């Protein structure tokens, strides 16, 4: 069976196609201001690659999951990320950390099903948005800020709140603190926040993995592993975990 998964996140939209569990296709693009147009653009890319959603079952996920007219079903990103991570990392027991644009999730996968999960509440601390705001203040993009952080020493940001942390960053800039030290402090701060969130669900001995758009930010991965007290694995395809999971679930949809 072939399945199509569409993941419309708050900043990035992804599509994936799987066949009998093997990943055949993956694609991403910025969500932009209209999730609807983005969904249509993804459909065209899928068709161009020979995977017309009319011919194959399709599941949509992510915050824009309800605006994908060609999907038969909407499933939450929690379930899809869990399914995708299980396939990508080949394990039935995992603690999955997904850093998204607006929210960060920690999902406990046990025996191949979601046993529990946490999502940050309204606050943007510990999310991709936090990194974006801080990177902006430093005049760079999040990926280069994280890369720069690897060369610095933690200058110390105590507040987890985006608004307060931003003013701490500004005052550090004012004091002439080297940029790499501030970047390092930003990464340390988000790592602590996520680790404390995850600690409510973490079980010793269960491997942890990172999914979402920051899966290739190796220094963040390292800092997160240190804060969590255990290494956290990832892989480049982990940014597609939601879409891959949706595609795998679509394969199992009953024929319309």
């Amino acid at each position: 069976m072939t399945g199509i998964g569409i993941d419309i996140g708050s900043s990035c939209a992804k599509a994936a196609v799987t066949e009998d569990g093997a990943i055949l296709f993956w694609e991403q693009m910025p969500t932009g201001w209209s999730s609807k147009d983005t969904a249509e653009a993804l459909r065209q890319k899928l068709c161009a690659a020979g995977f017309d959603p009319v011919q194959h079952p399709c599941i949509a996920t992510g915050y824009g999951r309800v605006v994908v007219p060609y999907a038969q079903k909407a499933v939450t990103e929690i379930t899809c990320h869990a399914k995708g991570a299980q396939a990508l990392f080949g394990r039935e027991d995992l603690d999955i950390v997904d850093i998204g644009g607006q929210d960060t999730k920690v999902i406990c996968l046990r025996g191949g099903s979601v046993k529990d999960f946490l999502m940050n509440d309204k606050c943007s601390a510990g999310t991709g948005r936090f990194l974006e705001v801080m990177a902006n203040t430093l005049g760079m993009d999040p990926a280069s800020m994280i890369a720069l952080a690897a060369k610095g020493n933690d200058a110390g940001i105590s507040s987890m709140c985006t608004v307060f942390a931003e003013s701490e960053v500004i005052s550090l800039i004012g004091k002439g603190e080297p940029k790499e030290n501030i970047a390092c402090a930003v990464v340390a701060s988000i790592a602590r926040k996520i680790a404390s969130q995850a600690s409510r669900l973490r079980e010793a001995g269960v491997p942890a993995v990172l999914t979402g758009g920051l899966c290739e930010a190796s220094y963040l991965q390292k800092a997160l592993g240190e804060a969590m007290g255990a290494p956290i694995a990832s892989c480049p395809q982990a940014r597609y975990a939601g879409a891959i999971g949706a595609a795998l679930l679509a394969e199992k949809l009953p024929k319309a």
Partner: protein
Amino acid sequence: MNYELPEQFAQFGDARKNGFLRVKSIKENGGKVAGTFCTFTPQEILDAAGVSPVSLCGMSEETIPAAEVHLPKNLCPLIKSSYGFAVSDKCPYTYFSDIIVGETTCDGKKKMYELLGDMKDVYLLHLPQGDREHALEQWTQEVQRFREFLEQKFGEAIPDEAIRDAARARNKERACRRRLMELQKLQPPASTGYAIYKALEGAGFYFDVNEVCKELTRLADGLESDYAAGKRPVSADAKRILVTGCPIGGVLEKTVKAIEAAGGVVVCFENCSGIKATLDDVDVDAPDIVQAVAEKYLKIGCAVMTPDSRRLALLEKLVDEYKVDGVVEIDLQACTAYTVESTTIRRKMESLGMPYMAIETDYSLSDSGQLATRLEAFLEML
């Protein structure tokens, strides 16, 4: 006596507006009204004194800014909203209350009552903390003191027999409420949880206990005969959810509605407007009727008590009786009692092998989308 209606009252929805007309006519006919905030308020004593109790629990975000002039921001929205209605004169029930009755429940409410006392006549009942041997004796004394206070305030004796009659009537009302809730034990249940909740809530604005019983019975009869005729308003696949936690009148749409929109159904409300307040009756034949009333109310489980063993025991019983698939705890932001106790509840549910999720929210709509995703994911997990 004729009351001029302040303009804002016109904005009230129909259910509450009709209740408002009722309360207005009570006042015009020389009746008295008591504003209440909690399921611990011994209604029978008010009934026997000829005072109509009405809940003043604030359920709307609208009055919170007015409250925040005096109250801290990081306070439970129920307290802020209730207080806001009182200071801004936006709630007809608060406006018409001859007296406001509070209890020493959570700290936020206790202190809010002090401030409310500057505007209104507030009477505070002192609740015992938990399950000490002398708790019942102490609470009986409090209820008796409350009775004497009402006798003095309104200049009329409250005979034992009047309390017994009131207890008989309230027992009947509780039985009607239980009957409606128990229709959700059916598989699939007889109704959406949202509709049941709305009916139970609306019943609080009828004032006439007999009328409440009539309305609730009519509703239950209707649901029962529809069911017998084969009507199934809820799919048999819907996951059966029990809701526990803080009072949820102000967050119903983004929690209960969201659960039911995502393919679940709330079969049981353990919290305030639901089962916990209606489970036990007053023993109308007890030699000491005041103590019998006190005893009924003391059986209510609530996180403001320590230990709160009654809530734990009730939850264990309900998940079994209602064949529940998962438990959702809905807590209000900054409610210390419930958010801390949620760890105890989580552990209890884990020990029962019952999936459990706690959410914390307030009266704003800004987290609706996120809550919907979390609730939906919880249902997918079951």
